[in-house]
C-alpha cells in the first residue's frame, strides 16, 4: 500500500510538472490576446494582468487601416498555388518512384541529398534565377520554390506502395492509362497522404517570410508575414492594434492546425526537415 501512495504522488507530480510546462507555453498567447483587446495605454506600468474594459475594436481598426484584406488575399492565393502544385507534382514524382527504371537509385539519392539543402542557403541564386525568369513580384514567383517538397514525395511513394498490386494490375488489364490509374485508383486510397501534403505545404507557404521579403517589390503584393513586419515599423503607438494584427494573423494557422493536427504530425515524423 506504500507503493500505491507512491504511485499516486508520482502521478500528481507528473500532472503538476506538465501543468507548469503547459502554463509557460500558453502565457505568450494569453499576453498577446489580452493586449489586443485592452482599451488603454498598453505601455503604462504596471501592466494589468487582466484587461480593463476589453473591446474588440482594435480588430476592426486593423481590417480597415492597413491593407489586411489585401495581404490575406495574397497569402491565400500564394498558398493555394503552392498546395495545388505541390500535391500534383509530388503525387506524380511519388508514383514514378514506385516503378523500377534505370537510374532510379540515382534519382532517390538526388532527392535525399536535396533534403539537406536548407532554403536559406539558396536565397541569392534563387533570387537571381527568379529574376531571370521574370517572375519577381508575381504570385507564381512567390509560390515557385515551394511547388515540390521531398518529404511529401516520399509520403506519396509510401502511400502508393501500400496499395495492393492486384488493384493496380486489374486496372491496367482494364486498359486504363497511367494517369487514370493514379487518379482513379491510387489517389482515392491515399487520402491521408494528400491531407498530409496539403497541411504541410499550407503551413510552410503561409508562414514563409524570407522569400516574399526578397521577391516582392510592390507593397500590394505582400503576404501576411511581410505585412505584419512592415506594420511593426509603421506604428509604435500606445494601443494594441499591432497585437490585434498578430492575433488575426495567427488565428487561421491555429484553426488549420487544430483541424489537421494528426496529418501535420504524421507529415513531420515521416521525414522531419522542411523540404
Amino acid at each position, binding site marked *: 500500500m506504500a507503493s500505491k501512495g507512491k504511485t499516486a504522488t508520482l502521478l500528481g507530480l507528473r*500532472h503538476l510538472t*506538465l501543468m507548469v510546462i*503547459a502554463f509557460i*507555453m500558453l*502565457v*505568450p*498567447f494569453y*499576453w*498577446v490576446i489580452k493586449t489586443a483587446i485592452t482599451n488603454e495605454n*498598453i*505601455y*503604462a*506600468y*504596471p*501592466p494589468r494582468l487582466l484587461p480593463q474594459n476589453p473591446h474588440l475594436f482594435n480588430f476592426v481598426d486593423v481590417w480597415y487601416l492597413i491593407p489586411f484584406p489585401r495581404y490575406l488575399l495574397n497569402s491565400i492565393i500564394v498558398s493555394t498555388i503552392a498546395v495545388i502544385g505541390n500535391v500534383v*507534382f509530388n503525387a*506524380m*514524382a511519388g*508514383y514514378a518512384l514506385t*516503378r523500377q*527504371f*534505370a537510374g532510379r537509385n540515382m*534519382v532517390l539519392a538526388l532527392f535525399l541529398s536535396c533534403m*539537406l*539543402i*536548407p*532554403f*536559406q*542557403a*539558396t*536565397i*541569392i*541564386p*534563387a533570387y*537571381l534565377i527568379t529574376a531571370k525568369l521574370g517572375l519577381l513580384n508575381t504570385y507564381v514567383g512567390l509560390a*515557385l520554390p515551394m*511547388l*515540390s517538397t521531398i518529404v511529401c*514525395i516520399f509520403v506519396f511513394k509510401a502511400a502508393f506502395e501500400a496499395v495492393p498490386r492486384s488493384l493496380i494490375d486489374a486496372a491496367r488489364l482494364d486498359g486504363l492509362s497511367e494517369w487514370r490509374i493514379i487518379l482513379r485508383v491510387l489517389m482515392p486510397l491515399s487520402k491521408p497522404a494528400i491531407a498530409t501534403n496539403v497541411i504541410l505545404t499550407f*503551413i510552410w507557404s503561409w*508562414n514563409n*517570410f*524570407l522569400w516574399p521579403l*526578397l521577391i516582392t517589390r510592390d507593397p500590394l503584393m505582400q503576404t501576411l*508575414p511581410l505585412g*505584419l*513586419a512592415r506594420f*511593426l515599423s509603421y506604428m509604435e503607438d500606445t494601443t494594441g492594434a*499591432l*497585437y490585434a494584427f498578430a492575433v488575426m494573423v*495567427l488565428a487561421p494557422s*491555429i484553426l488549420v*492546425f487544430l483541424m489537421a*493536427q494528426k496529418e*501535420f*504530425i504524421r507529415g*513531420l515524423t515521416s521525414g*522531419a*526537415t*522542411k523540404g
Partner: protein
Amino acid sequence: MGVSSNWWGRQRNRQLTLIVCFLLPSLIIFFLYRLLPLGWNVILSFQSWSPLRPAEWIGFEHYAEMWEYDDVFWIALKNTLIFIAASPLAIAAALGVALLVNSDLKGASVYRTIVFLSYPLMAIAVGIIWRWMYDERGGIINYALRSSGLIDKPIGFLQDFDWALPSVIFAEVWQILGFYMIILLTGLQSIPQNLYEAARIDGAPAWARFWRITLPMLRPSLFLCVVVGILNSFSSFDLVYIMTNGGPGHATELLITHIYKAGFVQTKFDYAAALTVVQFALLVGLTFVANKAAGGNAGAVERD
C-alpha cells in the same frame, strides 16, 4: 517474334518517357531552387560580380576579406555557434516533456497539443509576441520579475548586449520545443516494450533502464533533432529579423542575417554567396560530426 519484341520495346520506352515526364516537374523545381543555387553560390563566391558589371574571376579574395576584415562575420559565426549549442539543452528538455507525456496519462493529448501549438505559427508573429513579452514597460517578464522582487529595475532584454542573444534563443526554443517533443515521442513509442519487461525482470533500476534501453533506441530521433537544431540556425532568420534585426550592434547577428544584409541590403551578391558557402560548409561539417557521434548511419539502430 520481331513484331512482339518491338512492341515491348515501344512499351518500355513509352513507360520510361512517362516516368520521366512524371518526375520532371519536381526535378525542375529541385534543380532550379536547390542544386543550381548550391553550385551557383560556389561559383559566385569566386567572382566579383554585380548586376551592372560582367563577372570577373577573383579567386579567394572574398574569403580572404571574410577572414581578415569582416568582424561582423566572426561575431555572427560565434552567435550562430552559440545558437546551435543551445539546441542540446532544448532537446533534453523536450525529452523530459516527451517522457512525461508518453503514457496513458489522463489528458496527455491535451498537453501534447498545448506544447506543440507554438510550432506551426508564423515566426514573425512569434517574434512580435516575444518582443512584447520582453518589453521593459508592458512586458510580462519584467513585470513578473519586478513584482516578485527579484530585480528592481526593468531589464531591457532585447536592448542589452548580454541579454539579447539568450532572449532570442529562449523565444526560439519556445517555438521549437513542441517539434522536438513530437519527434522524440514518436521515437519513444517505437521502442518495443518487451525490452523494458526483460530489464525489469532482471532487476534493473529505472535510471539504468533509461540509460541502457531508452537512450540508445532513441538515437535516430535524437540525431534528427540535432540536425534540425543545426538547420534552425538558418531558418531563425524571421525571428531574429523581427525581434532585434541583429542588434543591439550585432549582438544577435546570425550568419543568415549577415548574408541577407550583405546580399540584399548592400547588394554585394558575390560576397554574400561566399558567406553562404561558408555557412553551408559549417552545416555539412556539423551534421557529419553529429552523425559520427550518433554512431554513423544517422544513428540507425541495429535490431536483433
